[in-house]
């Protein structure tokens, strides 16, 4: 855990209600599947956002504007300094992926899979990617995934873009392992349809984000886990679904 000051380089809308913010600062100790926790002036609790991309000096996050906090975040101009806790949570374990892992993201669950895809490719693996959205206006990062050399399948619930249906409708693939992030109903559907082991990135309302307050505890087959500290990534074997 590091408490760092980042500077906003850019903060722009990239799809319906969806914003991408690029920050400059110390990115040491950040890993795919982890999250960072932003302090916003005028709001008491921090806002946890999953890591979408990072390199030596920049960090990219993607967020949905869903309430007053994210509205305030979307209004911040470039140059603003942000107090950010980094290095939070257990990220994805890429060592168990096998050669052809499947990455399944839904809506606001897409971003962490981007950093993961980069890491897997760096390790010489060939990830397949399924990105699910409600409708065409919400689709983002298809091109970015393509630029990595993957061939993402995009699904939309209303069929306005790509394959009509849910991510599970596109899961008829040959894969060695899977990684997924998205709303819980989607995660449960992926769980039910999956034929290999895999890793799930969970979401829960958090107090602190670093394991102190027990605000985000969930039940697993191996005991109570704090989504923020023991997760957000849990394995298929741990989930009591």
């Amino acid at each position, binding site marked *: *855990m590091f*408490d760092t000051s980042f500077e906003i380089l850019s903060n722009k809308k990239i799809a319906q209600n969806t914003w991408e913010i690029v920050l400059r600062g110390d990115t040491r100790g950040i890993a795919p599947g982890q999250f960072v926790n932003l*302090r916003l002036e005028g*709001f*008491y*609790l*921090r806002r946890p956002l999953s890591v979408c991309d990072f390199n030596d000096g920049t960090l990219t996050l993607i967020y949905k504007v869903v309430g007053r*906090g994210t509205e305030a975040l979307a209004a911040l101009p470039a140059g603003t300094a942000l107090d950010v*806790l980094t290095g939070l949570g257990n990220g994805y374990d890429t060592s168990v992926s096998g050669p052809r892992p499947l990455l399944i993201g839904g809506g606001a669950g897409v971003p962490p899979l981007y950093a993961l895809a980069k890491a897997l490719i760096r390790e010489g693996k060939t990830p397949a990617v399924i990105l699910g959205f409600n409708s065409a206006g919400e689709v983002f990062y298809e091109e970015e995934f393509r630029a990595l050399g993957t061939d993402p399948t995009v699904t939309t619930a209303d069929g306005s873009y790509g394959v009509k249906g849910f991510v599970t409708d596109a899961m008829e693939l040959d894969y060695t392992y899977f990684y997924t992030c998205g709303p819980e109903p989607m995660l449960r559907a992926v769980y039910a349809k999956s034929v290999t082991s895999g890793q799930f990135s969970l979401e*829960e*309302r*958090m*107090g*602190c984000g*670093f*394991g*102190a*307050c*027990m*605000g*985000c*505890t*969930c*039940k697993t087959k191996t005991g*109570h886990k704090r989504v923020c*500290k023991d997760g957000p990534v849990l394995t298929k074997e741990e989930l009591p679904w």
Partner: protein
Amino acid sequence: MVNTQVTLSGLVLSNPVIPASGTFGYGYEFAQAYDINCLGSFSFKGTTRQPRFGNEPPRIAETASGMLNAVGLQNPGIDRVISEELPKLRRVFHKPVVANISGFSVDEYAECCARIDREEQVGLIEVNISCPNVHCGGMSFGTSPESAAEVTRAVKAVTTKPVYMKLSPNVTDIAAIAKACEDAGADGISLINTLLGMRIDLKKRRPLLGNTTGGLSGPAVFPVALRMVWQVYEAVNIPIIGMGGVASAEDVIEMMLAGATAVEVGAANLVDPFASKKIVDGLPQAMERLHIENLSDIIGGAHHG
């Protein structure tokens, strides 16, 4: 050189700053961030006889200058606290710790306090009769002078270390409850626990918390906490640990002027993991600015001005 030392019923603290129970776990997460031995002490996660999962999620909601929590006393139970947590804690914290104990019956309070009393690491027992997030027990013991006194007597009968009763602010007359605890033998009073509050999810049109209501903490409650510390100071002659929304060295001083001998820092730890350390570090400068040489001199100072 200013002097930040205070004494709670014989327990000498190098400074009055104590992270509050439920916001500091059993200390490890913070020990990874900084050396927690800079703290006066800390109050560990409220412990019960049985392990508890706590309440269904969501357990956290945001409010103006504060937060609601409805964790519901999640803890591994007294057996594992003694066998696992305390030995682990010993490696990162070398001062006496405040043991926070909760219960659902007078017997349970007595049994857990008796057991934790025997642990060498424990310097003081904080008996939580005020958790707003559990049903049957918890807060109900803290809402009448009689039941508060009953728990106090039962715990005092089986312990040797200082016993501080942690009171609920959700009462008409906090001073009467504090006085009842004092008369029943309590060594000190700890207050305030959280104020009962709630939020509603406008889209779902349902309570936001899984438990419907939760406990409000953070700077929003500071003026209420300060008033209750003031009232209890006027009512009893035993030391007070004041808490509720403390977020700065100045807030610590304000609490002490109202009557607190030591001060717990709660929600601030959750929004800034370094908050308690920053408060400890900021105390000498704040004291100099306010011309305070010995911090213990100002306890209750605003009552006689």
